[in-house]
């Protein structure tokens, strides 16, 4: 904490740190969407970001793989470190960054092609050789996303024919196939029914062994079920960050307390 160059203290989780933000601010034109976010996200654990809608948690997530670059008048100040290196250098290869930091979106968006081609899309982009090994990658990724058994006989079928929950697991398989270390999940279950949600949550706990996962969720039960660390956002500020148990059972900030007890939001 002593090396942190800002005045706001951050709670430093134990163990290896995967992502760290320093004085991160995000502006959309003149609007300040994020204010001085300092946070350290531990490797191979699940970190949940909660808060009422419009609090900046999704915007924050999109800073971590630079998806905000796509918005014309978005501007980032401060820095984000991935494994200790800045991702906002002038010569950062954004495509390479996104290969390391995968993202699963709110609604599943399969490309209008076959299941196989959806999963193979990423490896093909990044210059994957050999047909056999591509098939292996596809299988491994689909297994990793707990979808293989359901689709192994229909890999050539259009991905648009899958159910919503299957499509979301396909989106996860598609990300895994690229071989990232980090998975960013932006409310991945908000469009799914409870059964499908349960499967995705199970899957996340499996994936945690190998990936660093950051999930944005509006569902506090989900956050408490799956995550080890939780950050509470309000009006673009990170109000409180710490172990999930601590945040939910013994929050230090009154606003956090009000929120997790359902007094607003």
């Amino acid at each position, binding site marked *: 904490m002593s090396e942190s160059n800002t005045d706001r203290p951050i709670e430093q989780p134990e163990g290896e740190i995967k992502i760290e933000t320093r004085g991160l601010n995000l502006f959309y034109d003149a609007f300040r969407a994020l204010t001085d976010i300092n946070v350290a996200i531990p490797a191979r654990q699940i970190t949940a970001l909660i808060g009422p809608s419009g609090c900046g948690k999704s915007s924050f997530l999109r800073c971590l793989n630079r998806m905000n670059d796509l918005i014309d008048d978005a501007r980032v100040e401060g820095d984000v470190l991935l494994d200790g290196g800045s991702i906002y250098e002038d010569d950062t*290869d954004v*495509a390479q960054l996104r290969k390391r930091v995968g993202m699963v979106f709110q609604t599943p968006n399969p490309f209008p092609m076959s299941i196989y081609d959806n999963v193979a899309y990423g490896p093909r*982009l*990044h*210059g994957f050789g050999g047909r056999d090994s591509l098939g292996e990658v596809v299988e491994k990724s689909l297994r990793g996303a707990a979808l293989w058994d359901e689709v192994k006989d229909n890999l050539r079928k259009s991905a648009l024919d899958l159910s919503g929950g299957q499509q979301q697991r396909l989106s996860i398989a598609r990300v895994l196939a690229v071989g990232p270390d980090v998975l960013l999940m932006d409310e991945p279950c908000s469009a799914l029914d409870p059964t499908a949600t349960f499967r995705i949550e199970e899957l996340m706990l499996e994936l945690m062994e190998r990936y660093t996962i950051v999930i944005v969720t509006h569902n506090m039960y989900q956050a408490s079920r799956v995550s080890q660390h939780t950050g509470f956002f309000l009006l673009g500020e990170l109000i409180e960050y710490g172990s999930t148990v601590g945040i939910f059972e013994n929050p230090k900030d009154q606003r956090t307390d009000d929120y997790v007890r359902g007094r607003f939001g």
Partner: protein
Amino acid sequence: MRVLPRVTPRISQAIAFALLWMAALMVILPVTALLVVMFVKGRGSLSWSLVTSTEAGGLLAPIVGTTALVTLTAVIVAPVGVAAAIYLSEYARAGRLVRLIRLAIVNLAGVPSVVYGLFGLALFVMLLHFGRCLLAGACTMALLVLPLVITAAEEALRQVPRRLREASFALGATRWQTVRRVVLPNALPGIITGLILSVGRAAGETAPILFTAAFYSLTDPFPKSLFDPIEVLSYRLFVIATEVPRIEEGEKWATAAVLVALVLGLNALAVIARARLRRARRW
């Protein structure tokens, strides 16, 4: 062993984007350049006296003829086109008939202009005995721009908010009263814009009037009735470019420039009218 430099995605993107840039320039620049050359070459011969002259090469007769043709075209097509649009937007229920009508509109828009010429010849000139004249040409041209007018008018009608219709119905108005007093007045700007656009299209077409209306005359160029043939700018340009060798080169360019200016002017007028009328509307 020398390692070939791998074409990274970044490099292939740079190459691809450069090609896309060039393609966009190739679509826009050559034609723009040709038009600029045309205006420059035509400027020398373009004068008030050329535009108002009835001598050989003078443009008064074709300008009068074109004006008469497109005005009559608009007068013929407006009621039919708007009525068809009213049907589609206010009366029709989605179903097989509407699908068929839309397919017919698309097809009507795609019929080659010279085929319209043949149809006009067979129906208006021969069967109805109009002869080769202003009226036959305008009827043919009206048919050609009909799909354009229907589409534009329907678009305009559909943009009138549903709550205005509902308010009218709630006051006990019948469907036609609602259309006549609420929907049509509010859609009028869009309809007029569509009409001006179609007039612009009609002003530039040649093939449909080749056998139905156009002629090139040195002695009696002005039509005295609907049943006289007319001089038309586009046809004049065709004739002096291909058949009449004695016209001075500069005058040919000037004729082309006047035609393009007329067509672009009508289109610009439509765009301005749309902006103006849209601003005047408040909902």
